[in-house]
């Protein structure tokens, strides 16, 4: 057994142990904390699979933002935990559930062991077109040129999810501030981190966005770091999200996808296909789209965590 496969085996055992803990832990809060640790281990697994762009996304969004979201929810739902224990299914049902789950896992494992050889791949097709785009990071090229339609729809889906979250607001607070008001000790560690970390985090976020053209990184990872810095300020009571009725906020939320759609349809006239780029302008247009999506994604991701409006616009 080589060193690489030994390390991978250790990682898999850790990963599955922590994942099992998040399922069986008695307290939801403990399970959620386990989930954050699990997300970081999963990021290492992505690096082991040579998917550094995915590792960054997993660490930032899968572990970080989802973790903040679930920790906040588990704190607010803690009072409901005791009422749920009588609803727990009996040993027979749990056994049947375990059997069904084991069968599904076994089926997937069987398909893992019988994957086709040689493995199908689109990498040569990407490599062939990479020089004509002018970017060094193949994943960014896939996201914005090769599979631009997915990224366009995704940037719309996150805004739709935010509209869904907002639409859960009762009429009385519609247009108001998202989430409950946060109080933190002004001399506490949270307020300290809320002041010290954002200047560093903002630079890291913008850097990750900027190098995404040629190195692992990009707008999703960069926007998530910026959103995390904003959320840190909110949780420390140093900043507040704007009321959702603000016109500038709504314009910024749709500006990124709208510009993406406009450039996409302009491609039908200038390059012969929707979401195609005219020769020589691909890199410029991709950076324009990414720059326009940054504010939209930062605001959307942070506001998805902040939740629906719970305070009136008057405060």
């Amino acid at each position, binding site marked *: 057994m080589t060193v690489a*496969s030994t390390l991978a*085996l250790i990682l*898999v055992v850790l*990963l599955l142990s922590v*994942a099992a803990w*998040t*399922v069986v832990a008695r307290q*939801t809060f403990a*399970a959620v904390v386990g989930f954050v640790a699990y997300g970081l281990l999963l990021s290492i697994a992505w690096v*082991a*699979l*040579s*998917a550094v762009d*995915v590792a960054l*996304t997993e660490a930032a*969004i*899968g572990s970080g*933002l*989802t973790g903040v*979201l*679930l920790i906040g929810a588990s704190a*607010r*739902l803690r009072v*409901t935990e005791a*009422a749920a*224990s009588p*609803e*727990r*299914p009996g040993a027979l049902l749990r056994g049947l559930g375990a059997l069904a*789950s084991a069968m*599904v*896992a*076994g089926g*997937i*494992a069987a398909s*893992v062991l019988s*994957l086709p050889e040689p493995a*199908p*791949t*689109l*990498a*040569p097709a*990407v*490599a062939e077109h990479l020089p004509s785009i002018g970017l060094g990071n*193949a*994943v960014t090229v*896939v*996201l914005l040129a090769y599979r631009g339609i997915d*990224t366009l729809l*995704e940037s719309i889906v996150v805004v739709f*999810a*935010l509209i*869904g979250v907002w639409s*859960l607001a*009762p009429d009385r607070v519609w247009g108001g501030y998202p989430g409950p008001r946060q109080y933190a000790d002004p001399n506490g560690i949270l307020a300290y981190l809320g002041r010290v970390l954002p200047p560093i985090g903002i630079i890291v976020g913008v850097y990750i966005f900027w190098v995404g053209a040629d190195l692992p990184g990009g707008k*999703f990872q960069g926007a998530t770091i910026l959103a995390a810095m904003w959320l840190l300020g909110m949780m420390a009571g140093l900043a507040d999200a704007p009321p959702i009725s603000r016109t500038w906020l709504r314009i910024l939320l749709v500006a990124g996808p709208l510009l993406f759609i406009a450039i996409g349809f302009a491609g039908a006239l200038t390059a012969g296909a929707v979401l195609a780029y005219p020769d020589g302008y691909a890199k410029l247009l991709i950076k324009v789209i990414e720059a326009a999506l940054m504010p939209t994604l930062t605001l959307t991701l942070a506001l*998805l965590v902040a*939740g*629906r409006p719970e*305070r009136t616009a008057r405060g």
Partner: protein
Amino acid sequence: MNVPTLFGLCAAALVGLGLYGVLTNPQPLRKLLAFNLIGNGVFLFFGVIARRGAAAGFAGDPVPHGLLITGIVVAFSASALAVALLLRLFQATGSATLTGDAPTRAEADDRDV
């Protein structure tokens, strides 16, 4: 056993663990957490397929990598919507149970500050 196959089996186990959590845990938030495990298992399986597709100087097929990044972001927004629904249910009924006979509170909006 090579490294991608090992992570492929890990992905299968994650789906199994997550499915067990969704089936047996009565709390909706725990079901959501377990559902995220299922999603991670699917993503990891796709990542294994990407790693096996290494060619043309890439350490992995970049097309699945792009789709995975899209998938992780969409999974997060779906989780955020689910959490918002759950908190609204809690605010409206005072409980977070999925059983049919949950008590309802007529003046749900008045509890809101």
